[in-house]
């Protein structure tokens, strides 16, 4: 079930930009934790819970590595834990490293769901009108890739039976065969395109997406939530500084609202999927 991907591509794109911008560029652990749980929930709904947990555990050592490496590169901070070659290994850089690790984890997780939701069809829809030529190349390339892989494997299977070459040499000669074949057929493709009147008029795209009332509601709520989130970031109310000592700014009303708004933003797609899922199950049980 991917109910969220049924929204209009523009709205989905804006949603992801909003979430990415906050998760990639803030240093406050609160935002990052909210973003992390939100992305995890969304991924759990898109995949299964088990797969999500496994991929989460896979990235944990990576984040820990980033956390440990950070103090080696920067020596800011006021509380040294120990010294390596007269360079301080400070507590603050360690914490900042942990934040970095969390941030990278967040971004990787959001991109995992982005990859599932935002397929090439949506990209083409978004950019088809702005730049028709490049979108055409993009969609043709997408079409050629599986053809190549298939043709390459066919040639490789035959070559393996016929010749005893080293693996690398065989790959290269198969690759070369694929190139020849595809360049020759490309002219056929181009000629049949011209025969059907390409470059005589404007290129149009078929898009199955219509901007509906639901899209409008979602768009407006995304904009409201992201503006509420940004108010605290821009004014510096939610700022956390790490050097020379870690200082959390006080939790005032603006910051609190900002956290709530960002939490709503991050949990929105996951909750929406769950809601649609329940609706589906309920309607089945009624039948």
């Amino acid at each position, binding site marked *: 079930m991917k109910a969220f991907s049924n929204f209009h591509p523009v709205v989905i794109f804006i949603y992801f930009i909003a979430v990415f*911008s906050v998760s990639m560029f803030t*240093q406050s652990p609160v935002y990052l934790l909210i973003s992390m749980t939100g992305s995890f929930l969304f991924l759990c709904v898109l995949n299964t819970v088990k797969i999500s947990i496994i991929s989460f555990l896979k990235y944990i050592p990576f984040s820990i590595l980033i956390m440990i490496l950070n103090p080696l590169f920067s020596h800011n901070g006021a509380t040294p834990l120990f010294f390596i070659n007269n360079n301080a290994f400070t507590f603050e850089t360690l914490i900042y490293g942990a934040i970095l690790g969390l941030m990278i984890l967040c971004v990787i997780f959001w991109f995992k769901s982005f990859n599932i939701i935002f397929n090439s069809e949506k990209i083409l829809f978004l950019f088809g009108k702005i730049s028709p030529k490049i979108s055409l190349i993009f969609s043709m390339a997408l079409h050629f890739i599986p053809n*190549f892989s298939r043709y390459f494997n066919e040639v490789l299977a035959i070559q393996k039976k016929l010749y005893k070459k080293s693996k690398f040499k065989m790959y290269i000669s198969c690759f*070369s065969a694929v190139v020849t074949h595809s360049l020759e057929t490309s*002219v056929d493709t181009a000629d049949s395109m011209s025969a059907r009147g390409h470059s005589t008029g404007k290129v149009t795209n078929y898009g199955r997406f219509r901007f509906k009332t639901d899209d409008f509601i979602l768009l407006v709520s995304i904009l409201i939530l992201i503006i509420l989130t940004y108010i605290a970031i821009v004014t510096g109310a939610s700022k956390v500084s790490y050097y020379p000592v870690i200082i959390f700014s006080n939790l005032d009303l603006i910051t609190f609202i900002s956290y709530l708004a960002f939490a709503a933003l991050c949990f929105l797609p996951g909750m929406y999927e769950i809601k649609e899922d329940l609706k589906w199950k309920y309607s089945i049980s009624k039948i």
Partner: protein
Amino acid sequence: MLKRTFRYILILGAVPALILLGSFLFPEKSYAVISILLVIFACIPFFISFENRKTSVRTLVIIAIMTALSVAGRFIFSPIPFFKPVTAIVIITAVYFGGEAGFLTGSLSAVISNFYFGQGPWTPFQMFAWGIVGFIAGLLSNQILRRKVIMIIYSLASGVIYSFIMDLWTTLWSDGYFNLTRFLASCATSAPITIIYSVSNLIFLLILLKPIGKKLDRVKIKYGL
């Protein structure tokens, strides 16, 4: 004319505007925001000039084929880590079809292959890195074709350019400013990978430039591109 002036104003005005926006929205990480916005913006002029230029349908299809080949090459050689023909194919395309075609092949290969290998904040940087490697190859096309030394030097350099741009991004993103020690450290840790990139570019170019070039020349002459 008016449209063109408007476009120039847009391009000239956008850079300072982006810098202001980045530093206003995210004071803590302004360099990372600005760099990602700038790198996206840097790709646009190349795309616009390709979009405005008259190109035959056959050229379009061949560029699509070359893009698909470089992406497929990234798959086919996925058993050997970091040893990829992408840059070599981008350079070949640029040499035979000009810098803009090279830029397009490089940047589209980055986007499309990342649909399979995973999109991330690094995608715009990869787009720009592969694109600019292609664009420079287009400028040097005569020298690369005629003089083998230049070809060897450029194929080694292209691996370094690519790594350099990616390391720059790593540094800016993780520290929020240009931390020289981290930049040097990330260059040092990625040095073996950079060497593999450069060597693989060289090997693939040495192997592929002549045969693919011959095929492209043949298609060019036979079908009059």
